[in-house]
């Protein structure tokens, strides 16, 4: 368990450093960086490389935005196994739904309760 926390810290931190390097050295905007990282997550999932990383680093791999791309692919593949190629489309949000629905729900609640600053 202690090892899990340690590796979550290291791997999670390293993924953020990659993002920082893309912004500082690659001179990308945050929007470009995050889009690129999501795509990278999806591609890694395509080569079955992201799942072992989650086994190894736990939240260090599931909390960074790269895992969004991974879980989209995972959801699509799960459905594709059941329903063939149509499943790719229908299963897309099977696994990811919580991140987006949470963002929508809490975004709306936030807008109800908080006032804009500055």
């Amino acid at each position, binding site marked *: 368990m202690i090892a899990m926390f340690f590796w979550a810290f290291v791997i999670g*931190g390293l993924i953020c450093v990659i993002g920082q390097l893309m912004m500082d050295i690659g001179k990308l905007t945050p929007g470009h960086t995050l889009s690129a990282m999501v795509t990278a997550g999806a591609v890694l999932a395509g080569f079955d490389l992201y799942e072992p990383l989650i086994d190894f680093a736990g939240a*260090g791999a599931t909390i960074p935005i790269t895992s969004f791309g991974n879980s*989209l692919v995972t959801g699509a593949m799960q459905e594709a196994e059941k329903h063939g190629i149509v499943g790719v489309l229908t299963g*897309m949000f099977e*696994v990811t739904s919580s991140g987006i629905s949470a963002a929508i729900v*809490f975004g709306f609640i936030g807008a109800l309760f*908080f006032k804009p600053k500055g």
Partner: protein
Amino acid sequence: MKPGLYKKLASKYEPKRPVLKNCIRAFWTGGLICVIGQAVSYFFIFFFNFTEQTVGNPTVAFMVFLSMLLTGFGIYDRIGQFAGAGSAVPVTGFGNAVISAAIEHRTEGFVLGVGGNMFKLAGSVILFGVFSAFIVALIKSVF
């Protein structure tokens, strides 16, 4: 002035980015957010009926909830100035992008303001995520 000279001049006067310092900051703040996420997921495993396999969803939802509180009180933006990618790359940064856009545009009304602008910043992440996942999954399921 020759073309290209301006760019050269501009880049000369642009403040140099302290890359190493930024990276160290991004490393430990990003790492810390992931450690919090790990603690949250163990919490759900201990006290609720979640396995490691299923714990991802509630953990992410809880992290976005934390992000809402921090964004609403203006704390997340301050963390962001310090941490750079360290706070933008974790899912809390995604939450922050959605929530801050929602809060910022509420004066324009809930439908056009909040509804229309919520995904202004996060939309590209969803677009490229979904599209690349579609391509990857399509290739994978064909071969």
